[in-house]
């Protein structure tokens, strides 16, 4: 049914949100070896917000030598594609140059779902350097499917060879995912992909809906290890596919061992669907904000739930971490006044 299905492993990038950008070189090396052995051929690495994300604003990478380690693996496995997440506004062309030196050869140019034209020069830049370039639309629950399709079409016209829509807040339902996929496929020549978050327990259902509607790539993480409530669990999804008779070229047992590797290493930051994550999905607030919301709520002595609702109301998008602090400060001021 899905002969061209590509499973894209974002553990070493989205998981960076979960451990506050704390992956070590050693862990990345072990992970890449094991994932490769399990049959994975696309692995994304880096800061949770991608190239240029390392900052006081979002969080510093704890291991600055991470990329050197990745570069050695990239040269070891010639058929392994190493991906990087690139958000114009955080990353610059220079970051792309450095990433290429470190063995990255898939650039996923990402922007808020309404701002596709900010990726034009970035897509152009990496494509001119001979790189594989995808277009990613984040927070895609925030606009109607036909609007999303028009933005996707722009990215395609700039030269993106695949378009992925991201449910960055885990706010979509299977029906919505299905509608979006149909809308995108209608208008696009290039393949479509989907990236789930599990805030409302719908990562598996949504990814199946995406496949059924014709998505050709699915992002996933070992043990669902990603931002907030986590992502689609790679091993569980592949197990389900295999049970239904799909051939994935992946080894489920090895994938389960990969999940165990993550589980044993990051016992204190394993994603769970707690009430905070559910609220975040319900209000459509970016999953990666969770640690920052907890921190700001504690510093300003406000309720985390109120803060999430306020962020949802002011339509805050990924990258606006400072607005979590601004909103918390405002809530605290309002509380003082009453």
């Amino acid at each position, binding site marked *: 049914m899905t002969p061209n299905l590509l499973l894209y492993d974002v553990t070493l990038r989205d998981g960076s949100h979960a451990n506050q950008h704390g992956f070590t070189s050693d862990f990345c090396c072990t992970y890449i070896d094991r994932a490769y052995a399990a049959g994975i051929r696309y692995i994304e690495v880096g800061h949770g917000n991608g190239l*240029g994300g390392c*900052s*006081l*604003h979002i969080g510093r990478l704890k291991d600055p030598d991470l990329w050197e380690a990745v570069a050695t693996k990239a040269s070891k496995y010639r058929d392994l594609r190493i991906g990087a997440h690139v958000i*114009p*506004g*955080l*990353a*610059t*062309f*220079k970051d792309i140059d450095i990433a290429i030196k470190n063995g990255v050869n898939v650039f996923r140019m990402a922007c*808020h779902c*309404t*701002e596709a*034209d*900010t990726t*034009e*020069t*970035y897509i152009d*830049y990496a494509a001119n350097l001979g790189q594989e370039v995808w277009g990613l639309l984040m927070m895609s629950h925030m606009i109607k499917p036909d609007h999303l399709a028009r933005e996707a079409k722009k990215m395609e016209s700039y030269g993106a060879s695949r378009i992925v829509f991201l449910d960055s807040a885990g706010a979509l339902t299977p029906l919505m995912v299905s509608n979006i996929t149909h809308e995108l496929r209608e208008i696009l020549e290039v393949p479509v992909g989907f990236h789930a978050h599990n805030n409302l327990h719908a990562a598996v259902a949504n990814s199946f809906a995406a496949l059924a509607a014709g998505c050709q790539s699915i992002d996933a993480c070992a043990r669902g290890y990603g931002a907030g409530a986590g992502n689609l669990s790679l091993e569980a999804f592949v197990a389900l596919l295999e049970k239904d008779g799909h051939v994935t070229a992946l080894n489920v047992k090895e994938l389960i061992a990969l999940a165990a590797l993550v589980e044993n290493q990051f016992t204190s930051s394993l994603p769970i669907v707690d009430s905070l994550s559910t609220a975040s999905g319900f209000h459509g607030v970016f999953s990666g904000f969770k640690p920052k919301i907890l*921190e*700001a709520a504690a*510093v300003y002595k406000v309720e985390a739930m109120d803060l999430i609702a306020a962020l949802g109301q*002011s*339509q*805050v*998008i990924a*990258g*606006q*971490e*400072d*607005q979590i*602090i*601004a909103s918390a*400060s405002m809530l605290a001021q309002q509380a003082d006044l009453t």
Partner: protein
Amino acid sequence: MKRVAILGSGNIGCDLLVKCQEAESVEVVSFAGRHANSKGLEFAARRGVSITDRSIEGILDAKATPDIVIDCTSAAHHNHNYALCRQYGVQIIDMTPSKLGVACCPVVNLDHCLGADNINMISCGGPGINTYCFAFKQANPYLEYIEIVSTISSASAGPGTRKNISQYITSTQQAIAGILGIKGVKVIINITPAIPPIHMKTSVLVNAEDISSQSETKTTIEAVEVSTRAYVPGYRKSVDLKQLGSKIMYQVQVTGSGHYLPAYAGNLDIINCAALEVIQRL
């Protein structure tokens, strides 16, 4: 009376025209574009200014030549415009991110720039950003790293802004590092479609360990804020200095004057306010 010509009939040029006409000591002698029927030229004509569709050549050929040309075109055209102005002995204020002239942020280094034949206003939002960095650096001389996060509304980010994000980051980082003598500068920009459009917000973040006294830093910021507000009226604090973990953050919001551009376009208003301040001091 300062005799100025405005070169470039886009949003920046039109807004600057209104600001200059409202200023007592400034006379706009001509307004230039490249297309005879452009919205900007029509706007300027309605406001009673002599217009030309022959760009810099039109300005310099006119009978009433200016003392100062304000270049609101693009970095690609600035080279040519500057060369001609130099030939005619006319001072030029560069609103493009070409980086050819002396980078100027009024609160920080205005006096140093006044004698230059080419004064560069850095980038949209640049003058406002620098002001804060300057305050942090002034209160903490050993500051070695500073981060600036600007968020602007989609509605205020035109095609030029969207096509030049990488260059904007690089040139703003260089300008701040150069003017303040700080090695580590990181600039981040967000564009948000939130409705109603948000007014430009700029957060400054530093390492908490680099701040020797928070209260002194606060006092310095407030003083700089007062001098900035003298020429950018919509400048105000939106988050007070606060430590969160190992970082300290401060945020300002800039509301535009609403002359030609809407109030949310504080990012565009601020560079024009800064340019007007330079003109008045020349």
